[in-house]
């Protein structure tokens, strides 16, 4: 027997290729996987949340109150008129069981209104000052009530919470950031609703508008008012235009309203009702202020 030791063979038991290529593939694959998981969970949560009984949403919403008490007599009158309109329109909608609509009024120049958890909606002075008729105001109101009826705030919360939970499994800070954005800004102010949700809310609002006024002229007035907004306010980085920015293009909404009216045999135009007194008084004050 001839005994000898040879040098260990190189490149059989271990490869000496650059590990960065493998690293890049693994990171890309993991991120794609994570993205798919987050998207799937977000979609599932968005689907499930509005199907949970409303009382759970109400219990959650009781922890915060985005509807401030009016500070002046004037604001109190405006708020009461908004609430009366909301109640009148809500009677024509099948709101979820147990939901009571509460309207808040904020004396801020933002051209916006939003719907949030717990059947609450908030209107800003900036928006009221740009409306000419009750019909137009009713279109905004019906649109926000439609969001509430369709449980869009719950869907948005469900999606946000699910994404936050998934991300917190990866990084506590990431999860906290997601939850924070949701808990602070998201819950109280603006949920980002999808275009699809906005279209659904528009459709429901048109139905209510037609039932209440016999025509959908208010919708056309409202979209005209948005189209007349100065370009500066239509810019994406100006928060003043949130209501328009997250919504379908104004021209499309007008077209959709006209089309809906045609399909349902409802008049596009008709006699407008004047704004309630206190709301009508907002406009001159706003013009004096600016």
């Amino acid at each position, binding site marked *: 027997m001839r*005994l000898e*030791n040879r*040098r260990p063979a190189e490149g059989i*038991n*271990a490869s000496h290729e650059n590990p960065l290529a493998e*690293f890049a593939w*693994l990171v890309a694959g993991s991120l794609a996987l994570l993205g798919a998981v987050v998207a799937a969970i977000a979609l599932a949560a968005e689907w499930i949340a509005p199907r949970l009984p409303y009382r759970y949403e109400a219990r959650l919403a009781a922890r915060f109150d985005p509807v401030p008490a009016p500070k002046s007599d004037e604001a109190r009158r405006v708020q009461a008129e908004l609430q009366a309109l909301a109640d009148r329109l809500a009677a024509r909608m099948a709101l979820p069981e147990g939901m009571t609509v509460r309207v808040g009024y904020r004396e801020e120049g933002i051209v916006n209104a939003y719907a949030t958890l717990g059947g609450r909606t908030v209107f800003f002075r900036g928006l009221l000052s740009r409306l000419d008729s009750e019909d137009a105001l009713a279109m905004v109101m019906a649109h926000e009530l439609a969001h509430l009826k369709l449980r869009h705030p719950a869907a948005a919360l469900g999606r946000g919470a699910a994404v936050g939970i998934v991300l917190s499994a990866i990084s506590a800070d*990431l999860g906290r950031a997601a939850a924070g954005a949701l808990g602070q800004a998201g819950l109280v102010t603006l949920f980002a609703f999808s275009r699809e949700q906005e279209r659904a809310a528009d459709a429901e609002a048109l139905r209510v508008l037609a039932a209440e006024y016999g025509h959908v002229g208010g919708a056309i007035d409202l979209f005209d008012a948005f189209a007349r907004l100065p370009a500066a306010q239509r810019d994406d980085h100006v928060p003043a235009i949130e209501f328009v920015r997250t919504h379908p293009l104004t021209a499309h909404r007008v077209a959709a309203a006209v089309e809906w009216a045609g399909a349902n045999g409802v008049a596009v135009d008709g006699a407008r009702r004047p704004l309630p007194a206190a709301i009508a008084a907002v406009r001159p004050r706003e013009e004096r202020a600016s």
Partner: protein
Amino acid sequence: MDAFVELAILVALLATGFFVGSAIERRHYASIRAREARYADVLAFGFRFPADRVTPQRAFLVTGTVVVSADYFKSFVAGLRNLFGGRLRAYETLLERARREALLRLKEDARRRGARMVVCVRFETTSITAGWAPSIEVFAYGTALIPERADRAA
């Protein structure tokens, strides 16, 4: 903000692991190859008994042991690899280095004690993982043989 700090720390750890870890690995391989040439005269085998069973031999245990740790980059890549499966290249080089190093230390032990032949060489591995970077011990041992009479040496 915190998430950015976290990400920056992760990137720093990965970069340190990659650059320092690669440099250390390159140097280690160079050293292993040089010493393998130097210890080529000490023969190590896996068979249980000496090939030459006629010559009286002095026999004793020789050992070589080494403890190595993965770097952050290697553990990170291995962690991702655990998601998908497949060849764990990052650890293959680590373990190969450890085994070759352990065998070299065994040969050094043998030569210092005058032996040129080690039989029944075996390897043992112990994981001493603590925290995020796995560490392992590779232990090589065998029976060193020295022929009693020089003229009958194998």
